[in-house]
């Protein structure tokens, strides 16, 4: 077997160069790529090196975050939470290849006013609905979509996984005709587990919900009825776990996300 000559010291760097940039954040750049000829699209999340951090610290943090995100996704998969699977991990270079989700973010489906979208959408031929109750090409009423959001978050919390950054941009509705959707129905997929961790505490689950409530309030007009349908579906799915989380949510609403007043 012969593997030489390598054109580039880092194959992952070469992969990144051949990929299409979709979105850039402070932590990572997100690309659409293919891992080999004939392969389907894969989302490549590349945590580029941060010049403002000491190199050793940067490598340690990047490694921990890539590993953490990968573990959270697999934990979700095993518990039946709808998340994309992993396709490629290069922890040394901070690269994570994730199953491509063919669909639109909940944020773009709800129509988010005039703010720029955080994720550029594929499927340009399917226009997002502005103020209709049925989304063009998706045909899911807003209320049904909110029920899906609440149910999926409840499944995640029942598995003791805290997302850490719940926003409507971090949820996608997978198109029923997508080839990676064998069930043939609309599927709500949670994405971006970069800040996820595990916890059994009602407090942490309540903070997760509070972050989403604030995200709704700041991005969507008339968010209150939307978020209350999310919460209703969440309560139904959580069953006897809900009262403790509900009490904590009241506390968190009064004092904000941070429990400790230190620092």
């Amino acid at each position, binding site marked *: *077997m*012969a*593997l*030489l*000559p*390598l*054109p*580039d010291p*880092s*194959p*992952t760097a*070469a*992969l990144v160069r*051949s990929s299409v940039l979709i979105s850039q954040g402070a932590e990572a750049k997100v690309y659409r790529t293919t*891992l*080999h*000829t*004939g*392969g389907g699209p894969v989302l490549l999340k590349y945590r580029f090196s941060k010049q403002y951090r000491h190199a050793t610290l940067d490598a340690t943090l990047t*490694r921990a975050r*890539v*590993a953490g995100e*990968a*573990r959270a*996704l*697999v934990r979700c*998969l*095993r*518990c*039946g939470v709808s998340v994309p*699977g*992993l*396709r*490629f*991990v*290069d*922890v*040394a270079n901070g690269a994570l*290849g994730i*199953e491509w989700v063919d669909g639109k973010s909940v944020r773009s489906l709800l129509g988010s006013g005039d703010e720029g979208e955080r994720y550029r959408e594929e499927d340009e031929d399917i226009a997002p609905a502005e103020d209709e109750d049925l989304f063009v090409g998706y045909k899911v009423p807003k209320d049904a979509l909110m029920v899906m959001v609440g149910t999926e978050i409840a499944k995640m919390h029942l598995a003791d996984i805290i997302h850490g950054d719940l926003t409507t941009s971090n949820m996608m509705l997978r198109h029923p005709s997508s080839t990676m959707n*064998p*069930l043939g129905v609309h599927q709500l997929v949670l994405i971006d587990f970069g800040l996820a961790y595990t916890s059994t505490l009602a407090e942490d689950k309540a903070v997760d919900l509070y972050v989403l409530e604030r995200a709704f309030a700041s991005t969507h007009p008339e968010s209150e009825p939307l978020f209350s349908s999310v919460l209703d579906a969440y309560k139904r799915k959580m069953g006897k776990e809900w009262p403790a989380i509900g009490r904590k949510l009241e506390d968190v609403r009064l004092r904000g996300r941070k429990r400790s007043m230190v620092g």
Partner: protein
Amino acid sequence: MESFAYPHFSSIAHVALFDRVTNAGEIRARIVRASSLEGDEGDAEREAVSFAFIDARLVTSVLHIQTAITQALLAAAQNTLRTKTVHSEVIWALNPSNNITEALRRYGVTDDSTALFVIRIESLASIDVRSRMSAVVEGTLVPMSALAGLTDWVAVKKYNKLGGDPYIKEIQNDPAHEHHLIDNIVVSFVAMKSVSG
């Protein structure tokens, strides 16, 4: 046989699925013998069996194989191979544990294997891989889609320790859903092996 190019690794993977294989025990014995032969004869024999032979019963999809190839190529490029060759690394990548002997015993060719994935990883220059494969394996070359009838889902669940998962038990009466989910989980296991545990 299908070939997949990995341009960023300057490599190409030739993947063939053989069914009704009659000489699995012989192939295994040949690989073992080739490893200890010396001189030119040894080199020639090692070259003749320089493939990854994988028992198809434990493979859930072509993506499963492709993911193991990607991670093996990455380890080779970064000089972090845990086994001696990129071919054995593909087999190692498929097994959830770090035990090399266990990986070869479970995922490699065994005396009772009847369906085999045969993989050859090459630099981009092409050789006649198909005839070299046929020179080693006595069996019928079948399309990748034939894998659907070959996967042993009970064994896949056992070796990946998924049998006890409450959610997988919950959906066991819906095989299409169950198989799709298990495939996604085991593919993810292969991809994240370097950071698991």
